[in-house]
């Protein structure tokens, strides 16, 4: 019987939902800002996974999961900064930020 109390299962469920939302956002939206937001969602879903595993499997003994989550947050921040820089130059270049307009790297 599922309850709303914080447990590993519930956390993983929320994380899975967040991942699905993020994936949909990344794959389905045209605006690259939305794309960035989707990526953030996916990353945070992963963070939630890491933290919940760390909390529920090894309560108050190991903090590996938490540390890893902090690494991912830092990584996400830097990724966002680079993404925004690319976005700005892209906007300067073609006045648009839609990803389906950007296919100059086609092989």
């Amino acid at each position, binding site marked *: 019987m599922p309850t709303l109390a914080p447990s590993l299962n519930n956390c993983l469920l929320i994380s899975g939902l967040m991942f699905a939302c993020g*994936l949909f956002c*990344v*794959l389905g939206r045209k605006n690259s800002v939305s*794309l960035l937001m989707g990526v953030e969602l996916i990353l945070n879903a992963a963070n939630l996974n890491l933290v919940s595993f760390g909390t529920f499997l090894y309560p108050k003994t190991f903090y590996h999961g938490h540390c890893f989550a902090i690494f991912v947050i830092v990584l996400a921040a830097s990724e966002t900064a680079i993404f925004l820089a690319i976005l700005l130059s892209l906007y300067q270049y073609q006045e648009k930020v839609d*990803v*389906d307009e*950007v*296919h*100059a*790297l*086609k*092989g």
Partner: protein
Amino acid sequence: MHDDHDQPRIGDSHGESAPSLFWHFLLAISIIAALAVGVSLVEWLQPFSIPTAAVVLVALPLVAFTTQMLVGRFLPRKGDWVSLSAIFLSCVLGVWIFFSILRGTAPVHSQFEWIKVGLVSIKIGVNIDGLTAVMLFIVTFIGGVIHLYSMGYMSGDPRYGRFFGFLSIFCFSMLGLVVTDNLLILYVFWELVGLSSYLLIGFWYEKKSAADASMKAFLTNRVGDIGFFMGMAALYQWTGTFVFSEIFEKLPHLLESGAISPLKLTVAGLAVFCGAIGKSAQFPLHVWLPDAMEGPTPVSALIHAATMVAAGVYMVGRLYPIFTPEAFMGIALIGLITAFFAGTIAIAQNDIKRVLAYSTVSQLGYMITALGIGGYTAGLFHLSTHAFFKALLFLCSGSVIHAVHSQDMREMGGLWRKLPITFTAMLIGTLAICGVPGTSGFYSKDAILEAAYEFGHRPPLYSGIAGTLCSIFQHGVFWLALIAAGVTAFYSFRLIWMTFFGTPKFPAKYARAHESPAVMTAPLILLSVFALFTGLGFLGQESSVKQCWAQANSREKVASEVSSWRLGLQWGMWYPGLVERPRLPLVEHYKDKLGMRWAGLEEDSGPVGATELRRTEGEAAGVGSGHAGKPESMPDHTPGILAITVVLIGFLLSIPCFLTRTITLESIETIMPALGRPLRFLHSLLENKYYVDEFYRLVFIDTLLLVNECVKWFDQNIIDRIVNGCAHAFRDLTAFVGKLDLFGVDGLVNWIANMALAVGDRMRTFQTGLVQGYLVHSFWVVVLALVLLQFLAGGNL
């Protein structure tokens, strides 16, 4: 051509009246100074070692040659004084070495290792014994005299300087050949002698005949040298060394142990002798020597007296112990044929130099015969005396040619009034070559005849029919040699009569004839003295010579050459003491094995003169006294008296034939018509040199051309077809391989490339450039991977 224009100009700048006189004066002064220095050197050199002196002696002419070739053109007088002074210094050293050896210095042999490859070690060195010392003296002295003579004879020649350079290298080669202790180096110098003669015979190479003659000399010598080389290789194969003394030491042991058969040794000996046949112009290969008369006359003198032809005889003398009795027989036979055959040809020649050339061939035959019959000392003594009088005769003929500007004796006559010095010198030379008592030729020729006489009385080598033939041959040697001596007198005086007596045939030429300059007549006078007195030996050396002679006797019995010298003077015996016959272990081996008394080696055939001398010296030697009581083994002077008679007959016969012309072909024909045809045939036979050249042309050259044609046909029709067939087959093969390459290998390579292209073409459709497309792909790949992992892990994930 550039040189030809250049040199006279250089000469001219010095050659005007005043400078020319100056240079002559300087030359005279330098010659006198060199003479003085040389004479003092002989004493001063005493502490100087003989091998060093010998090396310096050999090297000097080489230095002169190099100088002459490099800077000779720029030197005053075109550098003739360089060659002259080099040979003169060599001569001084040669005289010194000669007297050192004559005074009793032991033979010197010094050597060092030259090449060492693995176990093969080749040593070179200097070997000075009596024979070498005599040769050194002869070569340097006659060479020097000829250098001097050439200054007159060759003056004005456009290649004057070069001529002296060539003379120098000729002397260098011959000297090197004489001093070496080693077969290999001897061969090297042997070939150098050949090269030098080639350069000098063809000196006037603008004349086609001269160029042809030099080529002929060179090629004919090569024929003999092949034999020499093979013999040398065989000796090296057997003994493993090139050094003479070691070869002589090892061969008897090898024969003793049966490692080599006597037949092999005989063949090797005869092969080595082939070299001498070529160089010393013996019978089958004598054709080059008369043609070599195309060279300048001083060169002819040098070739005939001191260098080229002497090399062959010297070589046989040097390698004397390697010959077996059979080989000696072959040598004697060749020598005898040559002596007789060339002597008769000389009778019918009209070219003054050709008469002398055939006379040389004949005298060389004499020497070789002497060596072949065991008259070692006699043969080599004749080589020494012959060198002087033949050089003299050639230089005289050069003087005559210089005066008359012709070599044909039919154009001469009555010249003795015009050329008194030349005439006197030539008469002396002729007397010497005929062997008139008192001249040097008498001693040497009689020595040979006595050796031949003694040879005839030896028991034959074989028994049965071969023995009879052998015995006939042994007796024949003496009689044929005797007849050849008469023939020598006949043709020599024919030359004198035709050239210097009778009426001048061409008055214009006779009127213009004049005696040669002093630089040419001085050598004639010098050589005349030697031609007269070489046989007598050297005054003042008597005691030491006797001592040498006694030593020689104590060691080895020399054949009977001595008795005729006792007709002359006691101190004529310097030579046998100096050049004594080496031990002949191979012949001794035969003597033991076959019980044959051969080659006069037996103790009891010891020479009379030697035993008598020994007795007069109070048995000083003290050895062989047991045989001293047998002087009757050779008591008679038969050969000597016979020789004088025969020479006298030859001389007397030549007077009516060529001086008074009472006996001619025509006069005989009128008296005895039956004799006419054979005599005419004989005359044309002799005039055409027994048609040997024609025979060679027919047999060798024409056959060669025929073979050439056959080979050409074979080449064109067989070889070329095979080659072309191969080429065609190969072409087809390559065409096939080309197809294989084009369709097989290239096909494979292209297929792979096309595949890659096709795959790439498909793959590029994925590369849309749209980020989300990639993400979709990666999403599905991750899903797929997860599903796969699920399967692989068997549902345990």
